[in-house]
């Protein structure tokens, strides 16, 4: 079983990139974490969510005009805790799907970020240098991490849409 687990990792598919909520946290969270946004944020999320695609590592990507904006999901930012530093790549850097492209340091730990797609970084969110907490406060909006070109559009088909991601999160809770 151990060998299979190792092989699974090597053979490209995703595994959860961030910790589960600890049992104590689960007891106090009366609502699922992705509903912890304020009603206003929730409606914004719903409007955008049809365009959002998610990875099993809790990153999201939204494609507009051939450019993908990448961030981490509400589940991820909640599990991460307060982000204190964002280590992001350089503009122009090429990324392979699932390649480590940076790290977020939070009060909980340093966590690597994995690219949801293959492409080239076109922009990084410079607001995060002064205000890393945006990742927690507005993970789907002002807390975006990078923008990138879409080198292999077919990769998007392999990502989860909102309903599939919600289902995925439910399965993790079990």
């Amino acid at each position: 079983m151990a060998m299979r687990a190792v092989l699974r990792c090597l053979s490209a598919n995703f595994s959860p990139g961030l910790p589960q909520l600890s049992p104590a946290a689960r007891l106090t969270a009366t609502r699922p974490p992705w509903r912890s946004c304020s009603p206003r944020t929730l409606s914004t999320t719903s409007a955008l969510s049809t365009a959002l695609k998610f990875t099993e590592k809790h990153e999201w990507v939204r494609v507009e005009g051939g450019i993908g904006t990448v961030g981490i999901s509400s589940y991820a930012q909640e599990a991460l805790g307060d982000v204190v530093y964002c280590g992001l790549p350089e503009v122009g850097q090429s990324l392979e799907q699932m390649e480590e492209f940076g790290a977020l340091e939070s009060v909980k730990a340093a966590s690597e970020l994995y690219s949801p797609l293959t492409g080239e970084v076109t922009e990084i969110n410079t607001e995060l240098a002064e205000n890393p907490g945006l990742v927690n406060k507005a993970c789907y909006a002002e807390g975006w991490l990078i923008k990138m070109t879409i080198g292999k559009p077919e990769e998007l088909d392999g990502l989860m849409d909102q309903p599939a991601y919600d289902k995925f999160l439910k399965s993790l809770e079990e």
Partner: protein
Amino acid sequence: MLQMSCDAVMSHIRRTLSLLRGCRTFSQSARSTSTFFSSSDGGLVLQSRSTDVYQNLALEDWIEANVDLQQRSILLLWRNRPAVVIGRHQNPWSECNLPTMRRAGIPLARRRSGGGTVFHDLGNLNLTFFTSKKAYDRQRNLKVVTDALRRIRPELDVHATDRLDIVLNGRFKISGSASRLSRKSSYHHCTLLHSADRSALATMLRPSCPGIHSNATPSVPSLVANLLDHAPTLQWEELLDAVVQQYNAEFSFSAVSALVDPADEAAFPGLSSAAAELRGWDWTFGKTPKFSVQTALQLPGAGSAVSSAQLVMDIKSGVIERCQLDVPDDWLPRRLSGELSGVLVGERFCGHRAAAAFTALLRCESGELQDRLKTLCDAVVTAMG
């Protein structure tokens, strides 16, 4: 702690490590023949025989990358010869005194976990708790340490804070924590001050140079103490045994401590090259978040006159991207201060590199101008720590 002959220990370790890597044939034979496996369901305690900070950090990464931690957890105990260890996103120039460290032969290491800067020596015990992400629980890990201490020295007032420090007598920090979450699993490691050299700690953990502006993660300085100063009979071995026992008690394991040698390439393939990467300049200094240095340089002139120059440098990935030197042009022609700045751009932010780059410049001048240029060069090199 179980005593075993050297050969038995080595074969026991090899079986264990093959087991960990999921080699099926080995594990089947181990299951039937090894008393070790039957007595350690779910937990493993390893003790590194290396005191090299880079090897031990590489050992942590090796375990994290190669061992299936979904079904089992590991406690790794290790200590290093004197070294300064900074967190993943820290700035070494602002966290520690690099010139003093160089003179004392104390190396700098950047770890992969977050958090602040610590001074390691043989009187500091490092504990790394490896688990699956589901089982990640730092408070519980620290409870292992505090419960162990309370059991063997009930008179000690120790508790873990919200910041995940362990504090003695309500005021002295004896332990700090940091952690890393990766693709498959997690580790949480912490220090524990048994008998470290506190004056060396204070000397090394000071900035190298003034005027650093950066948004790198800062350390939170704390008053520290050694356990030995407050529990003078607490031997190192007794502390280790207590921690191992408490780890087993807390998580209902029955693990026996096994010695491992990270320098053993057969047991840990790839570890040496990982250690080499951690030793390299690109990782240690090159991973420093962008920062700038803004400082005033004092320039002695004729008689007792002192002029002052403004130095501003932008450093990215440890390399000087931009350098501006504002020197009064009655002290030195702008042409020369401009050339000096120019020579630094593209160089590593390093006093030695700067000094070497300046020698060519200095050769071109002579007399009073050369003296003044040399003074300016020396001041810049000093400002770089």
